[in-house]
């Protein structure tokens, strides 16, 4: 295996010839009012008192990346619940990113949870420099939201969307979850129609995954909740694509649909496997060939940044072989697929030399195809993408 995990923490990498200075910047806000039943993210309820020192630590960490020579292409506030930050706190972080990382007229996204926000708050965010919102609607049925322990209602979600528009947001994305226990194809259609009726610019659709260690996993293990049937989930995916296509959305990644020009620039950085800064507790970054993660616990993270300016706990050098595999695996998630020319430019090897047999086999099964000189997943391949990805891993 070409990945090497280092247990000794070390400072993040500086830009190199192969990794020029531009990077996406992810800020993790690990605070939530309550914890959702399916969530296995790094987030904590009841630690709101840590927010002010946490924001200070984040600002200091960003300055550190600036000092190493990195520049920000995009900024993304993810969580947790970033909308628990005040507009002033958000403004402070955006300012820091501009000053230290040269963030100019870039995409600045913030994830907002219905029930924590109103028009005034959104106006404050806009003022602070946020220009894109991602609203975690998940479902337009309250009966779906309660078992997920999402502490908002469908009406809260509609209100949040309208408030954001009224406040002046021109670029809004909605998150929906499908494959919920007991969810019918009809209920899913209704969800999609409601979402489309609101008129968002972008939609992210996630199939519910029962993650180990979550309350949902325990309910499933006890037989209280029955996970959705795989074939039904496949039908839901196909229905979504069909319905959104007719509503003028273009799928540009397995789980992401956008009106033309409204693709998430920040997320495209992940799928194109280029550099990004991960700042904040438990955030993951990928800089100059090293993937790393920060201290998970907010309090320890704050202490770490206080001492050294960073708080890395784990780094993994991604060797050339693994980088090639990750690049094609992530690239295949995109509708545009992977270009052999770009692959050659990046790695100095022919795509066919490295992945020829695997791609030929996948093509034989009808999982990938050549479209406009690029290799990409077929409709069938998107549903069975793990089969393709698995074969592309080294070893």
């Amino acid at each position, binding site marked *: 295996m070409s990945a090497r995990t280092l247990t000794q923490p070390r400072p993040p990498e500086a830009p190199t010839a192969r990794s020029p200075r531009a990077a996406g910047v992810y800020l993790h806000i690990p605070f939530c009012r309550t914890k959702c039943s399916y969530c296995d993210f790094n987030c904590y309820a009841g630690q709101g008192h840590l927010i002010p020192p946490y924001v200070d630590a984040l600002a200091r960490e960003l300055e550190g990346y600036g000092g190493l020579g990195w520049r920000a292409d995009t900024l993304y506030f993810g969580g947790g619940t970033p909308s628990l930050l005040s507009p002033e706190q958000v403004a402070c972080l955006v300012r820091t990113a501009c000053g230290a990382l040269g963030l100019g007229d870039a995409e600045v996204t913030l994830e907002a949870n219905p029930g924590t926000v109103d028009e005034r708050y959104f106006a404050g965010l806009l003022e602070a420099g946020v220009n894109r919102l991602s609203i975690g609607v998940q479902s337009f049925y309250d009966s779906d939201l309660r078992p997920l322990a999402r502490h908002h209602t469908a009406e809260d979600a509609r209100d949040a969307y309208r408030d954001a528009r009224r406040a002046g947001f021109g670029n809004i994305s909605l998150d929906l979850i499908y494959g919920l226990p007991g969810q019918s194809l009809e209920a899913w259609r209704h969800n999609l129609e409601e979402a489309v009726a609101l008129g968002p610019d972008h939609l992210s659709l*996630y199939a519910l995954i029962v993650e180990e260690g979550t309350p949902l996993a325990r309910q499933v293990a006890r037989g209280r909740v029955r996970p959705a049937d*795989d074939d039904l989930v*496949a039908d839901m*995916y196909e229905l979504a694509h069909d319905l959104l296509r007719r509503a003028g959305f273009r799928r540009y990644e397995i*789980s992401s649909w956008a009106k033309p020009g409204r693709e998430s620039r920040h997320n495209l950085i992940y799928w194109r496997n280029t550099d990004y800064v991960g700042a904040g507790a438990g955030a993951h970054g990928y800089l100059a060939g090293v993937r790393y*993660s920060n201290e998970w616990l907010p309090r320890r993270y704050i202490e770490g940044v206080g001492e050294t300016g960073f708080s890395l706990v784990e780094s993994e050098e991604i060797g050339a072989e693994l980088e090639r595999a990750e690049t094609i695996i992530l690239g295949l998630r995109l509708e545009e697929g992977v270009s052999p020319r770009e692959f050659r430019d990046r790695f100095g090897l022919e795509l066919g030399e490295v992945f020829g047999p695997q791609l030929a086999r996948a093509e034989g099964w009808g999982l990938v195809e050549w479209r406009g000189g690029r290799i990409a997943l077929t409709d069938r391949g998107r*549903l069975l993408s793990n*089969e393709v990805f698995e*074969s592309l891993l080294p*070893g």
Partner: protein
Amino acid sequence: MTLSTVSKNLRQDHIRNFSIIAHIDHGKSTLADRLLQLTGTISERQMVEQVLDTMDLEREKGITIKARAVRMSYTARDGQTYEMNLIDTPGHVDFSYEVSRSLAACEGAILVVDATQGIQAQTLANVYLALEGDLEIIPVVNKIDLPSADVEGVATEIENVVGIPRDEILPVSAKLGTGTEAVLEAIVSRVPPPGGHPERPLRALIFDSHYDPYKGVIAYVRVVDGEVRVGDRLRMMSTGRTTEANELGFFAPGLRSSEALRAGEVGYVATGFKVVSDCRVGDTITLERHGASEPLPGYMPAKPMVFAGIFPVNGEEYPLLRDALDKLKLNDAALTYEPETSAALGFGFRAGFLGLLHMEIVQERLEREYDLDLLITAPSVEFRVELTDGRTVPVHNPTEMPEPQRVSRILEPWMQITIISPSTYIGTIMDLVTKRRGEFSRMEYLEESRVMLTYEVPLSEIVSDFYDQLKSRTQGYASLDYSFAEYRAADLVKLDVLVNGQPVDALSMIVHRDEAYTRGRMLVERLRELIPRQLFDIPVQAAIGNKIISRETIRALRKNVLAKCYGGDVTRKRKLLERQKAGKARMKTVGNVQIPQDAFMAVLRLEGEEVGQS
């Protein structure tokens, strides 16, 4: 009579050789531990719980696989000091020959019966072995401290079944130490001293052996006649192999060397042999020159009854598997194996075992001690096939079954089985035995509510999951013992399985013609559940010859995971894919279908559903 003879006879009078007969968990090891403590053989400090079972596997399963022995010194109430040799016996039906040899080394046996459970079938079988060998039986009712103990009922049962008067039965709590001294006194007073003649040529019975990397094979012996001294040239009477007694001594409980072992004594002899099969359980050791003319009676070479294919999951591990089997064989004379090639599973071995437990033990030791990833096919028995040309050939593997036109008839081994159970379960036991083609022989009441049922059943019906079924139907109360009865002709056919049109040789089995259809249907249904959906439709068929008798289809997989994947997910997602890939690598690919290991054992568990439905 010379002075030395008198002293030897005096010594012999003060020896007591005994073993303990008990069912699993009835307290044999705990009682043995108490006796060791009472006689000061080991101090409290040295006391590891259950000293005698030294293999990890033995501790875990709570059973003794290899026999052990220990010498104790006990000063009895009569003021005299006795040398007491406890020979521990294996506690499972697969090892009944080993039990019989251990018993042959003794003059007495303590029968331990759990006061809450009563006598079990295997225990009874061993008691009969002991009675045949003229051993003095000292019955002990153990666990009298438990609230559910039925000391009277169990004593009645012992009286009825074994015919020992109630006043000779000792109530004991080995756990608390109650009544354990009385056991030692009973051994002194009731068990006769060993017979045998110190003046005759050496005859020593091998009741077990183990391989020691430094000393070679160590034989565990009971000297019957004569004596053996360090440096004596020795001859194994059945194999004819000769060697020198490099070292000998007794068990204290570790090996303690001495100069000589004399008639009546129990001890060990380091033979320098490299494999235990040179020094077989039941064989007689004598001197190379001026040796005995007749061996001790009762020797039988180990005979495997159950056969299965053992294949490495990863074909590259084949040489490692071969080395591991070679090493196990050093210590296990009953294990046999020869190379086998399967179209589905590649290179492996066809191994023969004494029974299912023996098979399970070998498998676990290979996996644990040698870190091998194995695939074991469903066990089969030795069929004898009479060919039209008059020859008879043994068949250990369904794939070796000759073409039907060359076969005049097929014989299969039948066993006599004994089941002891509460009488409420007679109906369900009868039903089970009938379903397995068994024939009723007789029924005896041991006491009011417990019966002993005797049947004859084909071994092939027992090696699937007969024992599990019996336990589940009787809430665990029934116990089972079996021994070989005879070969009988049967109307048998070979049932083949085709996955995606390809025959999977490792799934073939030989079944009774009347059951072929039902078995085929159940097998195909089970395989449909066990083989994961893949990228294409997979037909699964059962066939007899060219005739398909059952078919199911595993529908093509439509979707695996549709996960999101952002920056923080990349590593995690990759690890998940790596795990999935490793999981698939552990499956065997037949044609282009990946078949998980479970599927190859599916043939074993065909009856599981039947009970689930009833």
